[in-house]
């Protein structure tokens, strides 16, 4: 899911770099707040933990194994801002020293995994993390964080004109769903084990949630899912619509629908996420 250099078109990687820079700066300021001492050692070591954790294989069936990505786990234990900083640090180290993800594409990868992925991982927990829905919320967070990052990456690639015939798109989405389930399962399993070791590791979500926030969150997800499904089933329809709407260049196959899905998801997640973070600090 780390996009290398050479895949994204210039408007896409440049715009995402421009978006990611202030987002990362915001997360860094946020993560530092309220402490006289530096949390940097903690976040650095937890980043090393996620690196190492990504290498542990979890067998999930006949010959398949998955691994933790970590955005949701970090957000539930360190808070979304700190989690975002840790994921950003990981992505930069991976790009520079392990050639995992491009340097110009860092903006895209940071937005996908360190911003949207972390927010999507935290949102269900923030909304439904108390009481009986707790376990389901944590599972949903893990699943959503992977799904959101993957769908966004796909949308960015499609918007950049990378070809993906329907069958490949279908397989990709299927794989994303499986990875999402695995992430959810691993996240809740590890959180449960952590609470047995030391309950203080996992923070309590803020009390009181609004129905509106829940509704917006669910809408964002449905919009994204709908956008992607629509795109994969009716590409010609979208192109036709786009040409009719006056766009001079016909959008590349599926680019339109997936693009809408991706943008819709980011937009809504950022809005909802912003409100969540402001609520937490109130």
């Amino acid at each position, binding site marked *: 899911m780390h996009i290398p250099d050479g895949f994204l078109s210039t408007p896409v990687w440049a715009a995402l770099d421009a978006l990611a820079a202030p987002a990362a700066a915001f997360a860094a300021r946020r993560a530092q707040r309220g402490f006289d001492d530096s949390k940097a050692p903690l976040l650095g070591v937890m980043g090393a933990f996620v*690196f190492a954790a990504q290498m542990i294989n979890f067998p999930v069936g006949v010959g398949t194994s998955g691994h933790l990505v970590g955005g949701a786990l970090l957000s539930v234990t360190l808070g979304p801002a700190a989690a975002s900083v840790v994921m950003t640090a990981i992505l930069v180290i991976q790009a520079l020293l392990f050639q995992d993800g491009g340097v110009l594409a860092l903006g895209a990868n940071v937005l996908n995994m360190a911003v949207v992925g972390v927010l999507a991982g935290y949102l269900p927990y923030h909304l439904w993390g108390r009481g009986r829905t707790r376990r389901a919320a944590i599972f949903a967070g893990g699943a959503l964080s992977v799904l959101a990052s993957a769908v966004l990456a796909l949308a960015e690639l499609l918007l950049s004109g990378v070809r993906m015939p329907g069958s490949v798109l279908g397989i990709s989405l299927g794989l994303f769903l499986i990875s999402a389930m695995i992430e959810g399962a691993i996240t809740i399993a590890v959180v449960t*084990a952590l609470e047995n*070791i030391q309950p203080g590791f996992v923070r309590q979500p803020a009390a009181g949630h609004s129905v509106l926030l829940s509704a917006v969150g669910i809408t964002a997800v449905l919009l994204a899912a709908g956008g992607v499904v629509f795109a994969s089933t009716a590409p010609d329809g979208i192109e036709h619509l786009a040409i009719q709407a006056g766009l001079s260049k016909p959008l590349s196959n599926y680019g339109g629908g997936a693009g809408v899905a991706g943008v819709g998801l980011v937009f809504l997640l950022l809005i909802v996420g912003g409100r969540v973070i402001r609520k937490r600090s109130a």
Partner: protein
Amino acid sequence: MRHTAVEDWSRGSSFLHQRAAGAKLLTIACLLVLLATAHRRIVVLSAALFLLLVWAIVAARLPLRGILSRAAVVLPFGGIFALISWLSGDNGRAVELILKSYLSALAVLVLMGTTTLPELVRTLELIKVPPFLLTVMQFLYRYLFVVLDEASHMRSAAASRGGMTFRAATGVLAVLFARSYSRAEGIHRAMMARGFDGRFRLLAARRFSAADAQFAAITILLLLLLRASAEVLH
């Protein structure tokens, strides 16, 4: 203590190693952008850039085969998409994907193979990357191999106790998390006791000298020339 090969390579003493990190960062960034925005005569441009990078590797006395093969880690991902593009009839894109992703990775390796991480971080700080993020990165890198070793030991232990089941893997992660967390608290206390205030005080960055300016100017000019010829000779 183990570290990546790139870290060993970055401690060389060639004239490239001695250039200021800012000059190298600028030229490599220039290369990446020129490559990313090119669409005409990609093969010729790529060949020229490849030769330039190979020259840099040799001049920096870095292991050529080692670097060329390390850059190849991007090929599986790129290869799949290139294949799909090829089969969809978009041959140009297929070629672009492979060439651009490989050369970009190679360029970053040349940068990191001639620049130590502390130097790079110092330069990133000068261009206003949030210092907090940079400090987190440095701690991450410093403890990466410590935690990786621990994870690897736990993996062997689990394997010798009846294989890595889902349950066993969960246990490994939870314990690794707890140990990392308490290790981090120990580090924090130790550093506070030594007067750490949240920022690493690095030795002064290498002053940007005339040689650095010349190097950057010549290289960027060359890159622009290569790119321009690719456009014009189309």
